[in-house]
């Protein structure tokens, strides 16, 4: 039987992690994500899992990579200043193809800025934060239910593609309370462990994919390094082909599976002249703005990016093909806007970038719609 809870977004995230099979969390307290850590500190030991409060976020990211190689689904949660510190080890996780989940409950930035206020200013850091070429997967929840669902999905994608997955939430979703429904049957992707064989290669050059990953202690005597490595995992830092093949494969396994990874929802877009594109908390305002506009016979629709990364360019192009104008609503001064603008050649792309910490209201969005409509 499905169970219902009236809980905070951050608690729902923790609940989702446990449902997904997460049994190790390492983190460092930071507003507005701390309730994720607090909930898991309380709940993980009850299901045989472990919680460590690390000395900082660099250590937290390191610890969950270690935990993942220990054979345990592992996660951390943080906010802007913490995600900045984690970038070094996030890059390591991409290079070593380590499945981990990183939750970022975004707050006013840059620097320490606004700990208790909302923003979406880390979107590009999720994309490009660590040095080098890699293709991240990121999910943005716009309700407490989605924070639960997307945390589970993040674990599933991390296992499927053997890579770090971000859950890019924000203070609004992290802190608000709503009802969630927890179904009895939740689809969980278990870690695929390799069969013992002499020709097993832990970093095999498989087209658009990756090989199953053993846990330390499984008897594979595997070497894992952030240095450029061959298919055995041995460092080979000076051969151009080795590096090219490795990094290309790490990118392609995500890029060439975009049709399976990307998730976009839309409404009222078929006949819309103006389409709002948003993700995370601002979707809530966009939906209400569209409902009111439609009640007023304005042809407005909305697109919701469940997976800002990899950027769902094909889906977005298709949905918005009939619109003359696209309005990107986000809580920063223009991050995903540049992606939308890059992809859409036939529509005028406008930005409603709101900073300061408050969720843009439906009225404010309608004002923007009217301004565009009046042009």
């Amino acid at each position, binding site marked *: 039987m499905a169970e219902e809870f009236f809980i905070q977004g951050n608690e729902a995230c923790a609940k989702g992690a446990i449902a997904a099979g997460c049994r190790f969390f390492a983190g460092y307290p930071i507003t507005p994500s701390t309730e994720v850590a607090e909930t898991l500190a309380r709940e993980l030991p009850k299901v045989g899992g472990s919680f460590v409060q690390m000395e900082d976020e660099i250590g937290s990211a390191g610890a969950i990579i270690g935990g993942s190689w220990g054979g345990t689904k592992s996660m951390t949660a943080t906010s802007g200043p913490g995600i900045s510190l984690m970038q070094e080890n996030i890059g390591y996780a991409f290079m070593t193809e380590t499945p981990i989940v990183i939750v970022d409950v975004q707050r006013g930035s840059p620097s320490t800025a606004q700990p208790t206020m909302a923003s979406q200013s880390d979107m590009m850091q999720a994309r490009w934060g660590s040095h080098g070429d890699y293709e991240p997967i990121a999910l943005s929840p716009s309700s407490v239910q989605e924070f639960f669902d997307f945390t589970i999905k993040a674990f599933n994608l991390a296992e499927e593609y053997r890579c770090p997955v971000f859950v890019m939430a924000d203070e609004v979703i992290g*802190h608000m*309370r709503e009802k969630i429904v927890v179904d009895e049957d939740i689809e969980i992707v278990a870690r695929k462990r390799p069969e013992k064989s002499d020709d097993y290669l832990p970093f095999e050059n498989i087209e658009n994919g990756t090989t199953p990953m053993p846990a330390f202690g499984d008897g594979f005597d595997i070497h894992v390094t952030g240095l450029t490595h061959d298919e055995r995992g041995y460092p080979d830092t000076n051969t151009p082909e080795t590096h090219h093949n490795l990094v290309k494969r790490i990118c392609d396994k995500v890029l060439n599976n975009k049709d399976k990874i990307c998730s976009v929802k839309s409404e009222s877009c078929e006949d819309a002249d103006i389409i709002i594109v948003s993700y995370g908390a601002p979707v809530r305002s966009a*939906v209400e703005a569209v409902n009111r506009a439609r009640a007023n016979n304005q042809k407005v629709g909305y697109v919701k990016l469940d997976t800002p990364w990899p950027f769902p360019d094909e889906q977005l192009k298709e949905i918005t093909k009939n619109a003359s104008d696209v309005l990107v609503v986000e809580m920063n001064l223009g991050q995903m806007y540049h992606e939308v603008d890059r992809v859409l050649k036939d529509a005028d792309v406008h930005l409603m970038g709101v900073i300061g910490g408050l969720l843009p209201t439906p009225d404010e969005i309608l004002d923007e719609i009217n301004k565009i409509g009046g042009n």
Partner: protein
Amino acid sequence: MRTEIRICGFGGQGIILAGIILGKSASLFDEKEAVQTQSYGPEARGGASKCEVVISDTEVDYPKVQNPDILVAMSNEALIKYIVDLKDNGTLIVDPGTTDVEDVRDFIDEHNIEVYEAPATKTATDEIGLKIVANIVMVGAITKITKVISKEAAVKAIEASVPKGTEEKNIAAFEAGYALAE
């Protein structure tokens, strides 16, 4: 219909729990939709703090309270600070033991506010013998006055929200609050 409720007071009065109980009642036991939000950071520590709930028959899209239909004030500082957004013809519920409505008389008259007095703190102290259940007394008064949640749902939500072993006292506090607004 969408109803926006703001409960305010000073830190430690259990303002947040009161809001959570309203939201839980509506969404888990009354088959309505609800979103609860609250103030964080320095604002939430002492001083005037607030907790907000949106209750609706349909899905709640925009989750924040902008212009409350109902304002519940449990401290005078919070009353003065948070009354400004109350809707015309809105409902104001105050604890007369901790607030003075005369301080906001002009606003009440100008906006045609309906005022109810629920002496939650006094009732909690005198009838239950526990000042800390004043928030639950207030939930009783809110339930009776506004009918935004049902009495049955409120009782279930209180039982599901308060610490184990304190259910009886809290239900008694709720009943006392409900009776206040007869």
